[in-house]
């Protein structure tokens, strides 16, 4: 192995890597080996702890017990049976949250049979992402190696696509990996410009909600009301438990969606939000949470600033909008999440804010903040250990813990790399 590569891999990891490499060559299918439950307390010390909620703690300690963070500070009582890891000035951050991705629902884009993210028809409120999550997808390990602890796997297509689910990036089966499901009901607002079927589509969407609401009242009134599998899935929306993630990019689309959500009295998260910068003050005033669906991209219009898309988060931040950043939809590209946050920094978003858009704010808007998003006692011990700011390219994610379990950061890429280094060694 290359010596530079060695420098940043802790010894434990190196051994694990060799083990996995060996295992990988033998069976050549599995990438990551899922980690077992946390057995003993783990104390990390000598680290810079970026809590996201309070001050950053220099030379700090973080204690993880039974999958939870139990203490964070400069002076933490070390339990007798704890495993103590000296981090030598490394950094601890919350594990990153990718708020919208096709992870587990697709393996190879152009191979249709590997795709499960879109169901037939326009109205599918009942389909659930976690039930089709392919836990052995090779892309999960790549995301994990990039510091991503959770992806919100999201169905797409039609007017009501289905229910999204927050999935951990480590585990043997989908039910082990499900952090929270459902996260939200996914709605795609119809295109308001040059759309011949606009009124038809608006009508179809409205009807679905009207029917579901009537069904909800009927169920509340009588247990004898037969179950409708579609409308049953929407009941938490009317109880205010489940937010509706409405995809809208263009100005009139966004305003129509906001006004509709108010009328329907439902909790709304605006997703996509390409043009949100043009009406940022209004979104702030109405306190609409926003998921910026990717920062890296070109301007939508020929006359716009070349950095229009990159500059959106900074605009939203200045206007006081409550937002977070999601990365690419593609499963293989999920690992690029921090690049999106970094691009926002290059175009004006403060670095600390950028970090929060993929941790704390993402957790809050996605309803995961009881477990994720910050380094506070009581939250899941889902953290990453790095040698620098995770959104900078050169930074290495050296370790990741999810709910106190140390995750194997091996991936298919790493395995193939190691394998073909052997080929190269042989011809040398």
């Amino acid at each position: 192995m290359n010596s530079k590569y060695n420098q940043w891999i802790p010894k434990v990891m190196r051994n694990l890597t060799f083990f996995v490499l060996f295992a990988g060559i033998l069976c050549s299918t599995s990438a990551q080996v899922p980690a077992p439950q946390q057995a003993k307390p783990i104390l990390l010390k000598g680290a810079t702890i970026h809590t996201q909620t309070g001050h950053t703690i220099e030379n700090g300690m973080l204690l993880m017990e039974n999958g939870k963070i139990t203490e964070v500070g400069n002076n933490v009582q070390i339990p007798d049976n704890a495993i103590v890891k000296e981090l030598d000035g490394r950094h601890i951050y919350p594990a990153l949250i990718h708020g919208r991705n096709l992870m587990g629902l697709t393996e190879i884009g152009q191979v249709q049979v590997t795709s499960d993210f879109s169901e037939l028809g326009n109205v599918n409120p009942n389909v659930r992402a976690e039930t089709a999550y392919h836990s052995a997808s090779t892309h999960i390990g790549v995301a994990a190696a990039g510091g991503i602890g959770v992806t919100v796997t999201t169905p797409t297509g039609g007017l009501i696509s289905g229910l999204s689910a927050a999935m951990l990036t480590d585990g043997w089966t989908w039910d082990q990996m499900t952090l929270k499901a459902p996260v939200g009901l996914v709605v795609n607002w119809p295109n308001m410009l040059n759309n011949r079927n606009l009124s038809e589509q608006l009508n179809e969407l409205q009807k679905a909600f009207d029917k579901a609401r009537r069904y909800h009242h009927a169920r509340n009134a009588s247990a004898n009301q037969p179950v409708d599998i579609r409308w049953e899935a929407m009941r938490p929306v009317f109880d205010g438990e489940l937010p509706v993630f409405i995809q809208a990019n263009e100005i009139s689309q966004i305003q129509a969606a906001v006004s509709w959500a108010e009328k329907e009295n439902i909790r709304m998260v605006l997703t996509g939000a390409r043009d949100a910068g043009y009406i940022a003050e209004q979104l702030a005033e109405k306190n609409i949470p926003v998921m910026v669906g990717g920062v890296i991209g070109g301007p939508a219009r020929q006359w716009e600033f070349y950095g229009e898309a990159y500059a959106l988060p900074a605009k939203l931040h200045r206007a006081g909008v409550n937002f977070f950043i999601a990365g690419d939809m593609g499963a293989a590209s999920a690992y690029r999440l921090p690049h999106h946050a970094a691009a926002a920094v290059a175009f004006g978003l403060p670095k600390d804010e950028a970090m929060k858009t993929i941790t704390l704010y993402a957790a809050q808007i996605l309803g995961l903040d009881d477990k994720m998003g910050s380094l506070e006692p009581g939250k899941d011990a889902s953290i990453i250990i790095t040698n620098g700011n995770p959104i900078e390219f050169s930074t290495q994610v050296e370790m990741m813990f999810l709910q106190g379990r140390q995750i194997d950061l091996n991936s298919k890429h790493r395995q193939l790399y190691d394998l073909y280094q052997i080929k190269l060694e042989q011809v040398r």
Partner: protein
Amino acid sequence: MHIFGRFFKHVSFTFTNTMNNLLSRTQLHILVFCIFLFTGITYSQSQSHRQLGLRDNTPEVYAFTGARVVTKPGVIIDNATLVIRNGFIEAVGQNIQIPAEAWQIDLSGKTIYPGFIESYSNLGMPDAKTIAESAEKLPKDGRHWNPQVRSHFSSSLAFNYDDKKAATLRSMGFVAAHTMADAGIFRGSGSVVKLAEDVPSRMIISTDISQGLSFQRSNELERGYPTSVMGAIALLRQTFYDAQWYSQKHEALSRSGDLLTKKEINPSLGFIARAMQNSAPFLIESEDEQYVLRAANIANEFSLNLWVIGSGHEYRRSEQVKNSGVSLILPINFPDKPEVQKPEQSLNISLEDLRHWYLAPENPALLVSEGISFSLSSHGIDKPDNFLKNLRVAASRGLPKEKALEGLTVIPATKLGIDHLYGSLEKGKSAGFIITNGDIFDDETKIEEVWVAGKQHKIEDTDRTLKGKWLTSGGSIENVILAINYRNNRLQGELQNRQEETLAKLENMKFENGRFSFSIPRDTVWSGMRLSATVSDGEMLGFGETASGNLFSWKAEKQTEEPSDKEEKEPGKTAKLLDLPVLFPSMEYGIERKPEQPRTLLVQNATIWTQGADGILENADMLVRNGKIEAVGRNLTIPSGAVVIDAAGRHVTPGLIDPHLHTSIAGNVNETGDAITSETRISDVIDANNVWLYRLLAGGLTTANLFHGSANPIGGQSAVIKMRWGGLPDDLWVQDAMPGLKFALGENVKRSPGRYPNSRMGTAQIIEDSFLAALQYEKEKAASQGRRRRDAKPFRKDLQLEPILEVLQGKRLAHVHAYRQDEMLMIMRLAEKYGFTVASFEHTVEGYKIADELREHGAAAIVWTDWSSFKMEAYDAIHQNAKLLLDAGVLTSLHSDNTQLATRMNWEAGKILRSGVSEEDAMNLLTMNPARILRLDHRIGSLEPGKDGDFVIWNGHPLSAFTTADQTWIEGRKYFDKEDDQKLQQQVINERALIIQQVINSK
């Protein structure tokens, strides 16, 4: 000839059908010969057609008196007389003796203009669908192999007079039109025809004088090659070469008396060859000003007499359009008013489109001021009324009226070779003219009549005898006033009482052939009454029926000419003219002039990534003189007069190079019509009007290799460009770069259903088959050239095999799109068998699996940082690909394959760092390595003395995720500056707002 034409027309609809039904191959050739023999013979008095019934010998003599006659643009005779006899002008001028037998027509207050000539139409031609249907019935032999080549199609034989279409053209003032079919890439011949029914032998003024071409294939014709503009250009060029070869071959055979040799018979090529030899005009439509230049390139290559039908964008590059030397036919057709009512909708309209909407009516004027003369055309105008309207708008925007008239009369007449008959009103010429009620450039003026070859055609009734107030008497409509007026040339009227108060609106008003009719709405005293009357000076003699069926007669007498002398018109909004800067390109972020090149330029106090032997220099300076780097080092002295840039705290790198990009390519990136399309050239279709060129500069990219797509085992010829924003395609193109050819393997090439290859196995075979063909071609070429000149055999230049041969000879770089290791090994082994080296693999997804084989062969690897799993062959993509390839000693580069990605290549290289690649090596992936792959490392790729002054000033470490370009320089010219960009953004916003207000304020 005309007899032939007429005869065939009766028998069958088109020439092609005719041939199929009636003629053997030999007869066809006789016919072809006849067409040539008779080409150019035009009208004469005597007739060959047989008279049916009694002969009409009424003298057809007319004398028009008292008119203002414009005999030709700029020559006006007031109160003139025009005498025509039997369709020809006998006299024009003042003091002319009126023949006793003449019908005398008083035209006081009217104006007579020479009839207009439409330079480009498809009048009387079968449409593409009909042509396709008849073409399908034909046998394939004896035809050109490509169904888009239809140069054999004769407009004179196919002409089928269509009075409806002719009437539309007449209503705009046209008396003659040049017509050709609009199907195919070679569309066949054009003829000039009269715009009125005449005896058959007089319908066509001039037969088969031109040939039509196109940059676009017709989808109605059999599908296949070409599917792209670059494919169409290749087909045009190959066919012109074939035509030259065809005629040389036939000449050589007849010279040698060797009539027994099997020779190719291909009338399509024969027609093209003859047209080339006769310098007959070739016509082609353009989509923007760059197509004019593309057409001119073809014209220059084959010395064609080329006429280009303009797109209205020529003003954007009027100087180059002028220098191109092509003849222009300008459709006087302007873009529709943009939809700006909803602000969110207007956001989606580009400044380019807004500018063009505003500037298009100025196009003719701007071309005149450049000294370009042109014909004007109604081509593309949907509503006939818009023709005169647009002409007047063009005049109001500075087109001199005389030039406008010339473009419709003398210029097309001369160009089409009919100026002995058309274009002006002079003795002996055809009696084709326009009668108007005023200056044709006045908004109020109507064309009243158009005379074609001495025959009257009424266009617009300007009779206003109805206008005024009429007092009724008699019957059921006693003692009321009919107040009648015109609004926008449409009748409107009211029923009023004697106090002139409105009682009812008149409905269903009609005035035809002197009889006026109308009805009265239900909710009045006269409810449901229907009335009509014959109108003469000051009196109506009427008849009516009430709703209950009572019939009555009535009368009316004119009281006054009021309501008003002037017709009421919709209130016109007048907008003041805008003063828009001239921008290159004429769009957002366009520049007013090419950036200055300071004689000496010193960049100071920067961290300079030389990417050469000096490595990364802290706190260093760089001196650029006349666009070339002169020195890089610490504490360079400042030459006097130097432009100095303090780059303290900033980083400077060479301009970034993307060796694989598909941006700024006009008319389709892929030619999918065939598996081997090596004849297509990206350099033919570079589109310089693409805002992404500017955005690429904003990302620090200065050079890119533009590629044909990957749908073909052997695709097109690539073109290296530098982002010289504001330049034309040829300014962007790095013409002295070593040429390249795109190959492609794997999934993409086997995706076209029914096209060989269908597998990776077949891909290998078709590529090797092409190599064998190229080597055979080399032998034939040598044999034809090796002898003394007079013995030289006509040699058919093969544009498809030439570039393949160049690859085999090592004169052209083979760039091979490949994902899997097996396919890469296949082509390397094939290349070794044929004695050349693969220059680079493109994408090289599994390159890490055969790093040692790549190194052995000497092929470079062009890779992505992290594209993976979007298709089966990308499933084994790994983020460490570049790392392993570099470690193995393979020349490795990054690429984008995606225009947006190409605007942030420094970030792509930054992402590589995690795999353990050093910073300098990572930067080399964007600079020195692609320069070496493109064989341009003597000019670009590093900041070393003697190289081009292409560099980027970054606001931080160039591989950081937070860093962006501050300035981008090419050859010592600053093409991008973040601070200037702020100003440009504001200018874009201001100009958009200005033009949008203009849209709102315009009619």
